[in-house]
């Protein structure tokens, strides 16, 4: 199908590339179908584009690239909702916020996006582990120094 997007123009999305959110992105209930655009020579960023609303997209990263010991556990319910089996391939992303006013870039480690690669069912889950909703990938210098000293 063809989707007219505000950032990528008209793009052709194959049916099999459509990801269906069984549990919506919080605050975006009703927008369940997305696709991931990752053929833009970016090796870090992925673009989550709504199939139903051309003007809605998110930037994502693979949090495992940025956090060494990022571990998530999926509840039985989520496994059920995403129809996961023991050998299902799971893909993890986290949503990126680009703060226009400060230029800061952060990601939400508390509520990652989980996709069952076998059937493209997805969910934004809220982890019980104590991960921050605001994990900074880039901060203005002064604050980064502060973080370093706190180490």
């Amino acid at each position, binding site marked *: 199908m063809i989707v007219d997007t505000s950032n990528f123009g008209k793009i052709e999305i194959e049916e099999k590339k459509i990801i269906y959110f069984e549990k919506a992105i919080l605050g975006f209930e009703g927008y369940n179908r997305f696709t991931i655009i990752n053929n833009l020579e970016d090796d870090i960023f992925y673009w989550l584009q709504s199939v139903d609303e051309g003007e809605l997209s*998110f930037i994502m990263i693979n949090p495992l*690239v940025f956090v060494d010991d990022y571990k998530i556990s999926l509840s039985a319910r989520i496994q059920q909702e995403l129809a996961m089996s023991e050998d299902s391939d799971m893909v993890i992303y986290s*949503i990126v916020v680009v703060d226009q006013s400060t230029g800061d*870039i952060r990601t939400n480690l508390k509520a990652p996006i989980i996709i069952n690669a076998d059937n493209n069912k997805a969910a934004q889950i809220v982890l019980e582990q104590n991960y921050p*909703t605001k994990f900074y*990938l880039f901060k203005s210098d002064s604050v980064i120094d502060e973080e*370093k000293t706190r180490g």
Partner: protein
Amino acid sequence: MLILTRKKDESIIIDDKIKITLLDIDSNRVQIGIEAPRSISIHREEVYQEIQEENRMAAIGKINISEVRSDLKKKVKKKTNKKND
């Protein structure tokens, strides 16, 4: 909304398997104990509000995509180049 009155150390059972106990009462603070199966997810409401707020800030409408991409690339490096503490 169902409203029940409970005293300290009294409980409520929901759906046979979730037990909520009033552990302690202060003037404006109560401590609640929750026993539930692992499959039930329990979070403070603020966590959800915070996540919604982050999601809203993350949603991008029309942006200058090449500008944002080069900005992101410039600022964000993989962890090999990140702070090394």
